[in-house]
């Protein structure tokens, strides 16, 4: 049960991304950096979705808490980006405790609606307090106060952006992989599979849910904070309902394998969307049909994943 080195095998993904860096042309490089930042959010979502089996429709609130936390800290407190990152993560975690508290009380479809309402509340608050948040229009951060701004004397901004995203993604992948192999990870899976049984064995399931949500909050918040600190913009455009649904799509497309799925799903959806960007109208339909076909395929292709030995956490 003790985590082993082999649990860190999914780190192959960031390693490949690091190796690919010199080979990638400029635009795919920029796109990869964007996708890496977003896929941290995808991992955050998967912690709730795959590990404890809670489907939330409110994760955009956590992403937003990270984004606004970091952005507003930069603007109002100090332009130190590392502290801003910490502030973003801290605000996301505190919000995630609230969502976790909801999860401890209601279940299933009720929870979906409750989380949806919670994130809509954040969205409306962002619009309502627009003197502070910039509302729909948003706020631009000083370039010098952003993470890439700090690295500017050392390397080009594009490189800084790529490696900062890569570094954070590696930490997220390692964290999630170790977590899923740990005792706590097994407890999460048990919670997903049979909550009553686990409760009757004397485990505090509410506490477990709170823990899972706060892990999810760290990841989602880090992704949101990076969004602000790497791309120097915060705005309500990132908080809408669509931003809560996106990670559901990523994790579904990526398949039920929490170590690699969130990244693969996020990669695939975003690359497909990007491919379709220059196409004329109707591309949304093309992408949609492609994704639906693909999610059917991942369901059917479960045996391929099993053959490849990616753990779904049930093989014990």
């Amino acid at each position, binding site marked *: 049960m003790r985590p082993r080195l082999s649990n860190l095998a999914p780190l192959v993904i960031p390693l490949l991304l690091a190796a690919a860096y010199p080979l990638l*042309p400029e635009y795919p490089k920029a796109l990869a950096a964007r996708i890496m930042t977003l896929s941290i959010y995808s991992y955050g979502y998967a912690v709730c979705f795959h590990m404890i089996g809670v489907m939330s429709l409110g994760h955009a609130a956590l992403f937003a808490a990270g984004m606004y936390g970091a952005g507003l800290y930069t603007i109002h407190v100090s332009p130190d980006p590392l502290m801003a990152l910490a502030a973003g993560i801290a605000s996301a975690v505190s919000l995630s405790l609230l969502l976790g508290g909801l999860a401890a009380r209601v279940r299933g479809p009720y929870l979906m609606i409750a989380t949806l309402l919670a994130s809509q509340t954040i969205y409306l608050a962002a619009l309502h307090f627009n003197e502070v948040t910039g509302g729909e229009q948003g706020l631009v951060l000083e370039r010098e106060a952003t993470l890439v701004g700090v690295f500017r004397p050392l390397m080009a901004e594009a490189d800084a952006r790529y490696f900062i995203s890569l570094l954070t993604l590696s930490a997220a992948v390692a964290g999630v992989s170790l977590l899923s192999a740990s005792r706590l990870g097994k407890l999460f899976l048990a919670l997903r599979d049979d909550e009553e049984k686990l409760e009757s064995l004397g485990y505090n399931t509410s506490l477990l849910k709170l823990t899972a949500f706060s892990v999810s909050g760290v990841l989602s918040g880090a992704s949101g904070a990076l969004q602000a600190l790497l791309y120097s913009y915060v705005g309500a455009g990132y908080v809408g309902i669509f931003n809560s649904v996106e990670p559901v799509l990523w994790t579904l497309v990526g398949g039920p394998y929490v170590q690699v799925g969130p990244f693969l799903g996020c990669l695939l959806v975003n690359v497909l969307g990007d491919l379709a960007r220059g196409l004329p109208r109707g591309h949304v339909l093309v992408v949609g049909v492609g994704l639906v076909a693909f999610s059917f395929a991942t369901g059917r292709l479960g045996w391929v994943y099993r053959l490849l*030995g990616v753990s779904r956490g049930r093989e014990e």
Partner: protein
Amino acid sequence: MNRRYALSSLLKTGIVAGAAAGLGGVAGYFSSRLVAERSPPVKEAGVKPIRIGFQVHRTGIGAPYGFWYERVANAAVSYINRTGGIAGRPVELIAEDDETSPAKGAQVVERLVLAHNVDFILGALFSDVVLASGPRAGELKRPYFAVSEGTHVPFGLLNRWCFQPGITDVPGQVTAVAKWIFENLGRRVAMIFPDYAFGHDHRDALTRAAERYGARIVEKIPIPPGETSFTKYFTRIPRDIDVLYHVMVGDVLTFVRELGVFLGRDRPELFGFIDSIEAVPLSAPGLEYLEGTYFWEGFPRYADGYDTPYSRFYRESVGVDENGADKSDPSRVSAYSHMFGVWETLFVIKEVVEQSGYSEPRREDYELFVNSLEEMDWFNEGLWHPQGDKLFNGRLHQSFGHQFISTVRNGRLVVIHRTKIEDSLYEHANDYTKQPLF
């Protein structure tokens, strides 16, 4: 844990990751193929085209505007190419959908610069997209031309690489029409505005103008975004005002109907911004109440509103009829007060490229281009600037121009006044020329 599984998990995960990388590679390959295939061949052998990237709201909330922006951009580029291109080079327009989303907008800027290596970017209308895109354009060192009316360019929220020469901004528009309102409709004003940046720009500009001209804003009524019913806010409208000033607050049909029911026939003068009824036919049910009220127009929707050879040529080129609707579909009303900005911006690019000797995307050429543009101070009225001449402020990167005031008569807009450029000027401390370019 099963021993075999433990031993091979590293290898197996590696295979999955490898497969994923392979998949990404294949996708990337097709992506570049797609990009390569879409670029039309160079029109004249040996002459490299000027590539202008176009971030367009094809889908999302801005789509009704995006449709017209794209139509105008294509018309202008086709005219430019028919008449010798820019500095003798053909223009190639590379349009990509930003879904009217700030996240996607910033991504489109990256695509246009890094994948297509465009010379210039013709930017968006919606403020959030412009605000998210500006910093990216500044970092990638590519001139970004907003056609947005927002204050983000003139008030210094963006950077040295962002310009707005083709359309006037909200404070300029409000400053100009406020003088006319106070002189002709009355000096006690209440205003209804949407409670976000666009509305705040109106509120602040009108408040400043009122101070300047000795008028009084007796009540400011913000409407939260997303509001669907307005009557509860109307109760705050004071009885003894001369003018009710209103800006886009949501669904205009509901707004006007409820306003009609609430105020009835004994109403103050109404002055609105065309933005609320842009791309909406005045014959829409419920808009009868607007009869006899006043509107700001950027460029008159009806052809007789500003009938010059230039405006006629422009109207013909973009395929809009006498009533401001699509020639091929009279029920599709154009975004006439905004879309001319796309036309004029493209000609500003043409003019500055030709004057500065810009030739390709590199540091020396952009230094020439940006410095020349910042030294511009005037654009003459003509085929290139059919809406009228414009004063350009190189420190603010913003144009100032004429505004139109129209009244609704027999269900159509009739222009009754055209403001002077001097009326729209205001002071601002912003100075982009002080920022380093590289």
